[in-house]
């Protein structure tokens, strides 16, 4: 009798997992359809955005770009140069050197002729790593500020940057990011159009590996040589470009990448700044903003801007990718734990009732379900609960649906922004769709499950280091 019950349970579990695969992929499809609507609106409106007027207006909001940097010597100078020369009327770049052990600061000092100034650092938000010195560029003291501080982590650096930021809007940018020339105008535009309600905007992050970068700008977009990165490009299209656009359309955007996001400084300060007790400090801030603004009964908006973009270097080796994905999933687990009171709580509207539950069921738990499927299907086969004909069909249907979803995202990119102009890149993208679903996702599931597990066990978080090629001549030939 017990054997019968176990067989029944196993059979039921197989069907449940298959149902879960259908639901998760269907949810991706829904997000892609929503994103398609947004892209049409965005592209049709491109003719009358008024970006030039924003650029010329003396009333356009000034922006402080906060760049946390830890051992970024390889690319810090061109990155800062590129930020300073962004097409935007009033900017200040605040680089926070978080106790780098390489020559990040020396390179900045030599290139920009930095001068130490006795700057008063307010404590609007708390930070633990003490500020050692503040420097400004001799030729542009109000445009470039470089802070040296004791190592305290990325969130701590961002808090120091927030304290030193002079302007009402703050843009958080990774030191290894390359922004399109119009990127800042585009992400600030929603603040100009709706200054009272707009709380934060996120810009899309794409992968820079393989692209040619000249003078701090991506000038030739192409797929890299490494298949691992090509697969990530497809994944970014599905999960970030279309996924976040879809959530933005639904009013449930809870993730703004730390690589490129603009926030109202006063709201971030009122919310307490960046949290230093999670490795997912970027998304945590967005969730906390939702929480505080909803509690205060404020009418606000947090939106995602699909173009232009910030380009970032993706991990090209499996080990680095593993470190990154463990960290991301760990961050997600921590955020959902910290803000568990928002889950299924109607007080937090779509964020509490739809977005966060979705992230719990279809993001946080997804790797566990995927790994469970890997165990249950072979066990069911061995016990004769399912036959081989059924098992392979089940697997092909589940992953085939995933391919349709990824391919839809690729098609949407082709219809809208079509950044990859070479035929060979389109073909590589199509192959990437297959590889993403067969092999990549399964390996990722292991790393993600590990990350979440570490969060729940309270294992100490480590950042790890990513080997960066920088965006000089090394990337040009890639």
């Amino acid at each position: 009798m017990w054997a019968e019950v176990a067989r029944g349970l196993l059979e039921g579990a197989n069907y449940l997992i298959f149902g879960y695969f259908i639901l998760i992929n269907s949810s991706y499809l829904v997000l892609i359809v929503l994103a398609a609507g947004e892209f049409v609106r965005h592209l049709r409106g491109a003719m009358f955005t008024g970006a030039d007027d924003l650029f010329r207006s003396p009333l356009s909001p000034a922006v402080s770009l906060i760049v946390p940097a830890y051992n970024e010597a390889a690319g810090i100078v061109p990155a800062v140069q590129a930020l300073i020369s962004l097409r935007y009327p009033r900017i200040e770049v605040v680089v926070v050197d978080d106790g780098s052990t390489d020559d990040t600061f020396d390179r900045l000092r030599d290139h920009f002729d930095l001068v130490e100034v006795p700057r008063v650092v307010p404590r609007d938000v708390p930070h633990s790593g003490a500020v050692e010195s503040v420097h400004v560029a001799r030729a542009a003291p109000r445009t470039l500020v470089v802070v040296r501080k004791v190592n305290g982590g990325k969130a701590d650096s961002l808090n120091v940057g927030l304290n030193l930021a002079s302007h009402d809007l703050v843009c958080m940018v990774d030191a290894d990011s390359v922004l399109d020339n119009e990127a800042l105008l585009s992400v600030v535009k929603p603040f100009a159009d709706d200054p009272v309600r707009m709380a934060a905007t996120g810009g899309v992050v794409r992968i820079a590996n393989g692209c040619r970068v000249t003078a701090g700008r991506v000038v030739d977009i192409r797929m890299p040589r490494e298949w691992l990165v090509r697969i990530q490009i497809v994944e970014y299209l599905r999960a970030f470009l279309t996924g976040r656009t879809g959530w933005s359309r639904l009013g449930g955007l809870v993730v703004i990448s730390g690589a490129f996001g603009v926030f109202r400084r006063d709201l971030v300060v009122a919310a307490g700044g960046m949290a230093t007790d999670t490795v997912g400090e970027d998304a945590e801030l967005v969730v906390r903003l939702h929480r505080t603004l909803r509690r205060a009964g404020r009418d606000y908006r947090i939106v995602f801007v699909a173009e232009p973009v910030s380009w970032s270097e993706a991990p090209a080796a499996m080990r680095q990718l593993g470190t990154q994905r463990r960290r991301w999933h760990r961050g997600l687990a921590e955020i959902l734990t910290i803000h568990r009171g928002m889950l299924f709580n109607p007080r937090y509207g779509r964020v509490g009732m739809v977005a966060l539950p979705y992230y719990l069921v279809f993001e946080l738990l997804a790797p566990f379900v995927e790994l469970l499927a890997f165990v249950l299907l072979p066990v069911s086969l061995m016990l004769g609960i399912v036959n081989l004909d059924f098992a392979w069909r089940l697997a092909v249907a589940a992953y085939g649906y995933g391919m349709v979803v990824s391919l839809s995202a690729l098609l949407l990119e082709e219809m809208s922004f079509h950044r990859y102009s070479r035929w060979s890149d389109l073909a590589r993208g199509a192959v990437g769709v297959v590889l993403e679903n067969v092999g990549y996702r399964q390996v990722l599931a292991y790393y993600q499950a590990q990350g979440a597990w570490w969060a729940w066990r309270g294992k100490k978080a480590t950042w790890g280091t990513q080997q960066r090629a920088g965006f000089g001549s090394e990337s040009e030939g890639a």
Partner: protein
Amino acid sequence: MAIVVLTIAIFVLAGLVLLLTLVAVLIRIVRHARNRRRERLARAPRRALLAFVAEGGQEGMEDLLAIPPAAWQAAEPTAVALLEKVRGEAHQALAEVFARRGVTTRALRQLGHFDAAHRARAAELLGNLRLTEAVAPLCRLLADGKPEVRLVAVRALGAIGHPEAAGLLLDALTRDVPVHMVADALARIGEAALPEVHGALRRDEAVVRITALEALGLIGSPGSVRAIVELLDREADPDVRVAAFGALGRLGGRAAVPPLITAVAPTNPPEVRVAAARALGVVGAVAAAETLAGLLSDPTYRVAHEAAGSLVLLGPKGQAHLRRSAEAGGAHAREALALAELTGAEG
């Protein structure tokens, strides 16, 4: 049964994969072909347009009028971009080309189009054409149901710069049009908008008063200082007061100084004090040096920071205060002096 369903699903999914791939390829082929055709069609008209503008619109109009419709359509984005960039006679001549080709009439007609993108695009073009006849229909668009259309209408009316629109632009503020856009538009209308803008200082809605103040600061008419000072006598809303201090800072004048000195008093909200401290420096109120020096040790960081920055702007008298404070250990004074030294080195 389950196997049959799964088999059908696999075939459907395989079909979808093929279909999506095929569509992606087709889209790329069509786009490339369309772009090549457009590029080919636009090449000659683009040259003619550039030559026309370079000649200040004196020669080449007939050539532009003779361009076949398909080629003009391909080159129209270039023509519109030029319209935004050129001034004076060249702009007038190019606007005439648009009118004689029927583009202007089409744009006026499209202001009533059911599709919001068409209405917005038409409004943008009419603004770039600076067409006075478009003022009335554009004013109607200020009440459009779509926010993006309202925003374009505001910008277009600013570009045309006709005073008739001033009052309606201020009214549009109650329909979620941002302050800075209306203020910009009013500033582009210039002194002709002053009667409406001064009148707006007495309106009940705070957002209208704020916009009027921003516009006055941008228009830069010194005669407005008295109106702003009068407003400050009766104004309680801190946001409006902050805007008023910003405007006074831009306009300057001795009359601006007494209300600014009053506003930095600790009894006022921090944002008001910050704005007033900043404005005292921008105005160059040497008489306020003592007051600003007293703020250097203010517990509110921004107040002390702005006061130090303003003392730098006041020249030798202000900087003498800063030096005295720095010698006594004043952190904000030390910071301001260090930055002043660098800024001076810039000049």
